């Protein structure tokens, strides 16, 4: 474990990439090695390895309780991993907390939406911009020129980001009163506002109708192309996962049981047994 921590800035094992053939460069956005966490003696995640390239869209799938959200919580340091290392853009996150991980370039959304309900849509996005457009508390209280300048910039940037999802007209609406789908989209905008290198989406299509999901898929690709960032998503909607993910990792009982292209995953007997088989029966 300690030996792993020393190995920063090295060429990643191609085998840890989701699709080995793909060129990831020497410094992937995310490089997680031998990640593991225990809760009260129970291994929730065990020896999880994953490398995500600069503009990759990766999917993380698996049955309920497989540990998918736990992986997100480990990457964002909501939980401290018991074993293993995580490099974000080459930087070791060993001593980082959630806030520092965000500054290092990881933003996320939550499975159960976590917006600032009582605040306006625009303010929600402005909170995402918090560390990008700064002025001191004193210039805020004294209303110094810097306050007006930065607030104007924030306002413009917030509307620009909201326009990705065509939400700029809702800027003054209270976030908690938005319809469900719009709340999910606002969470993505808020995460994007922090200027991440890797965006983690936890079930972005949950609760959306097929039409909305279709739109979301287009938007995820659009976000990747416009911002040139990597996206990793957890999703149960197989149409979405198979439709937009370039690489997919399948998690079961806290370990990766398969990874590859959507085609490879769909034909992998292990996956079909552990996961897709059950899904098909259910449908």
């Amino acid at each position, binding site marked *: 474990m300690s030996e792993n921590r020393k190995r920063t800035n090295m060429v990643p094992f191609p085998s840890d990439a989701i699709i080995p053939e793909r060129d990831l460069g020497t410094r992937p956005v995310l490089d997680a090695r031998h990640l593991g966490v225990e809760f009260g003696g129970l291994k929730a995640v065990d020896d999880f390895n994953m490398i995500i390239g600069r503009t990759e869209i990766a999917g993380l799938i698996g049955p309920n309780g497989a540990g998918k*959200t736990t992986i997100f919580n480990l990457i964002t340091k*909501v939980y401290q991993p018991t074993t293993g290392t995580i490099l974000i853009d080459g930087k070791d996150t060993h001593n980082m907390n959630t806030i520092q991980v965000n500054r290092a370039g990881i933003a996320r959304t939550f499975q159960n939406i976590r917006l600032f309900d009582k605040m306006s849509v625009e303010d929600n996005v402005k909170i995402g911009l918090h560390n990008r457009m700064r002025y001191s508390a004193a210039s805020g209280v004294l209303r110094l020129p810097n306050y007006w300048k930065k607030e104007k910039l924030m306002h413009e940037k917030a509307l620009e980001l909201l326009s990705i999802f065509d939400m700029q007209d809702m800027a003054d609406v209270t976030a908690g009163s938005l319809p469900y789908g719009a709340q999910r989209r606002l969470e993505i905008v808020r995460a994007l506002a922090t200027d991440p290198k890797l965006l983690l989406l936890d079930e972005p299509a949950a609760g959306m109708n097929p039409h909305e999901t279709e739109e979301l898929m287009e938007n995820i690709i659009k976000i990747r192309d416009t911002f040139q960032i990597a996206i990793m998503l957890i999703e149960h909607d197989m149409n979405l996962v198979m439709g937009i993910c370039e690489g997919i990792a399948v998690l079961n009982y806290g370990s990766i049981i398969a990874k590859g292209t959507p085609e490879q995953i769909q034909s992998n007997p292990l996956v079909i047994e552990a996961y897709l088989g059950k899904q098909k029966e259910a449908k």
Partner: protein
Amino acid sequence: MSFLSNLINGISLGSIYAIIALGYTMVYGIAKMLNFAHGDVIMVGAYISFYATQHWGLTPLLSVVVAMAVCTVLGIVIEKLAYKPLRSATSLAVLITAIGVSYLLQNLALLIWGSNPKNFVSIVQLGKISLFNGELIISDVAIVTVLCCIVIMVALTWFTSKTKMGRAMRAVSEDKGAAQLMGVNVNQTISVTFAIGSALAAVAGILLCSSSPVLMPTTGSMPGIKAFTAAVFGGIGSLPGAMLGGILLGVIEIFGKSYISTDLGDAIVFAILIIILLVKPTGLLGKKVNEKV
């Protein structure tokens, strides 16, 4: 000799804190709320016992029973009227409401019983024990208090581990939702918890006023807060923890007052609360809880 006498006083005071802390810790463990008004239930119990013995002519033992009955009803009523409607509210809202209930009880007491302190007559009249040629005097109240505390502790441990209601309590404190699904009547369990806690508060109030006989509407508030400190000290939600925390706190308070400064006794107790919460927020015997993301 003064060391021994301080130690005995500390254990006696600590036993009172322990009895109050048991009520705090049970309510906190099960309803997940800080019942700020718990200390004022103590005061009500003491007043009832005072009037029962001094004005209604009841025997001391009977007055304890009456006080316990009144406080039990009071506890259940408070829970039903003020706390139950807030079951899903934020902890901020519940705590402010509890503070409101605390002030309501104090001011009702002020209205009914007046602001003049009552001179509480100890319900224990067995005579002091004098040891070492009168160098060490142990008061009867101290002995009775410690005995009461032990009996209550044993009875509560038996109750929570051996009876059906006790098991329901432990289930609710682990996971309210799951307990409900398994057929536990959560509302009833919470009511019973408040009832037990309040009955114990009555006992604590009577013992408290028997050893320091000034009874006022605000008598309960400071011991209440200190007992909460004791519950946190021992680990909130843990019965043996409340007992251990209470006794340790009582001893520390008495020693602090006699060896450091009389004026700073309370400050020392509160400093302990702060240190415990910062160093080991789960207390001496508590469990760690993780927030779900």
